[in-house]
């Protein structure tokens, strides 16, 4: 029982990391149709900026974190101004531009020699080394991991609520569906688009501030997490925040299960994202068939 609880705890922590990265991508995709592949790259740069401020320039922790997130938000502002405005109505090219941005940002990170010399650096956190024991198991959870889980719950609920209940959220969805109609309703598409990109990029920066104290501040490790988060976003159909969070938790739990129970097949761990995608496809195909079957009598009756 204790081992199973351990799987759940480790899985929830890993799943929270994937889920938190993925909800940022889902937010941008759902409201713009652009798959922001640079999400991880933006986070990596802002993480290193925060590390520079806190570790090398000895600034207070919260100022360093704010500096990192501010850089990410500024990048979002500039990306919207320079790229998105020049490629209106072309989400494919905007997606390609995020690929270019991802490469560019990784390039920026490796050009600062002292940022990447130490492969085992951790973004400092005031909560580091503080842990609590999960009741009923021998598993300890750090405060940083607990904070990430709480933040995931708050942000996923908050973003879900924002997109459905707030003026800015509804405006984002309206602009995404029809910029012209949104404009006629008094919404300024440019302002909404700018706010969205600033929010999306800022969220990416914040993600790294929460994730990097748990993992390492390492460009390769964070890139790999982003790739897994993309799979998680796929599980949510790239539009559903609740399904994305659930997908992250399922993937994390399966990986933890693999580590603790399937010790003779450690490489299977890397296949789980792919297996989950196959299962998601099968499930969606079954759903589609069911909906077609359910609609059939209605169509027949109408005819």
């Amino acid at each position, binding site marked *: 029982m204790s081992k199973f609880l351990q799987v759940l705890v480790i899985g929830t922590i890993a799943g929270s990391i994937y889920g938190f990265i993925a909800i940022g991508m889902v937010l941008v995709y759902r409201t713009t149709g652009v798959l922001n592949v640079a999400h991880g790259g933006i986070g990596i740069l802002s993480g290193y900026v925060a590390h520079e401020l806190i570790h090398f320039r000895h600034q207070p922790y919260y100022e360093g974190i704010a500096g990192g997130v501010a850089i990410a938000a500024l990048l979002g502002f500039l990306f919207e101004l320079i790229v998105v405005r*020049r490629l209106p109505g072309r989400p494919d*090219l905007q997606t390609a531009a995020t690929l270019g941005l991802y490469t*560019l940002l990784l390039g920026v990170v490796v050009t600062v020699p002292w940022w990447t010399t130490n492969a085992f650096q951790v973004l400092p956190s005031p909560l580091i080394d503080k842990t609590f024991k999960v009741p009923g198991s021998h598993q300890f959870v750090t405060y940083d991991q607990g904070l990430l889980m709480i933040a995931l719950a708050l942000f996923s609920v908050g973003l879900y609520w924002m997109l459905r209940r707030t003026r800015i959220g509804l405006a984002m969805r309206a602009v995404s569906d029809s910029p012209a109609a949104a404009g006629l309703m008094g919404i300024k598409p440019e302002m909404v688009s700018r706010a969205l990109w600033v929010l999306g990029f800022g969220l990416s920066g914040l993600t790294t501030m929460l994730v990097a104290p748990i993992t390492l501040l390492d460009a390769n490790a964070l*890139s790999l997490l982003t790739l*897994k988060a993309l799979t998680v*976003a*796929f599980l949510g159909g790239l539009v559903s925040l609740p399904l994305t969070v659930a997908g992250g938790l399922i993937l994390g739990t399966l990986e933890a299960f693999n580590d603790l129970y399937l010790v003779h097949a450690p490489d299977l761990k890397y296949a789980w994202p*792919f297996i989950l995608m196959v299962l998601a496809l099968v499930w969606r195909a079954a759903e589609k068939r069911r909906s077609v079957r359910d609609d059939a009598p209605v169509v027949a009756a109408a005819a």
Partner: protein
Amino acid sequence: MSTTAEFQTDAPPAPDGIAVASRPGRTVPSRALVARTIGGTLLAAFVLAGPKLFTWAGPAGAYDFGLTVAMLVVAVSVLAWIGEISLAVVAQMGLGMVGLSWLQDHTSFPLAVSLVLVTLSSIPTSLILGLFCLRLRGVNFVIASLAFAGMTQKAFFQKVLGAATSLHGRVSRPSLVRSDGALYYLIMFSLIAVVIGLYLLQRSRMGTALASLRDSETAFWTLGYSPAAYKLFVVCLSGAIATLAGAYYGLLQGTVPSFYFNPGLAIVYFGFAVAGGMGSIGGALGGGLFFGAMPKYLEVLWPSIYNKFDFLFYGLVALVIIVWVPGGLAGLGRRFWARVEGRS
């Protein structure tokens, strides 16, 4: 809002076979004829001279690497014929290298036979990927291909090749292509064969069918064609080209680090394809050669400056081309050539 963003291509639609046949007597203006003759001659001279033109800037291997990247970018670009993007090409490239290494270790086939077998060996993996292509479109397929590549790299390459530089994945060069200069001609002529093959395919009935499949899958299906068969064919074709590029990469490097095949690199190569002009064979060649070879020369010319700036260079140039050069390098080339021929 659509749940998928489909990647549109900048390639011109393939000409209709009947339309081409109905204008056999089409006269080419004299200025265009002269331009084409001079252009063709210069291109032929450039191909034959090859890396010798750039020996002042770096070793022949740099140019060979550019050609290998160009072949891989062509593989990425071919999938755009059906409006899809795969980020599994680097994984397929790795399979080519591993396949060639295995054949050299276990058989004594000549290089030509090994290359053919390696290329054919790509079909099973391409079919697995192709099954996803049948169910998914746009970014959903991109993510599926990325997951496939991630699984292949972690569960296969690192297992077969080891965690870092491989001692198992050695590829030796036969005496015929021992030097980088000789290898250049082998890769170049393979690339020319691939390009001519693709060009003919684009202009055949099948090319026309593929263009119509990209435009409307429903109409394609209604007309009695099988989208599944055509899609699987294109995925297999792209996989075969990527695998062949991998075999050449193996010949060039001799030993291959397993971390080279990480899916993130596929993102970089996709950036090259977009910068070249998605769907355009010429653009893919130009983009791949430019982004593949140029950094290698810069590394030699300014090692202290360049070694740290390769990703910066890739990202910046790709971003500038995507945003400011519509149609990528292919669009730029088309506009330039239209001016040379006096069509604009």
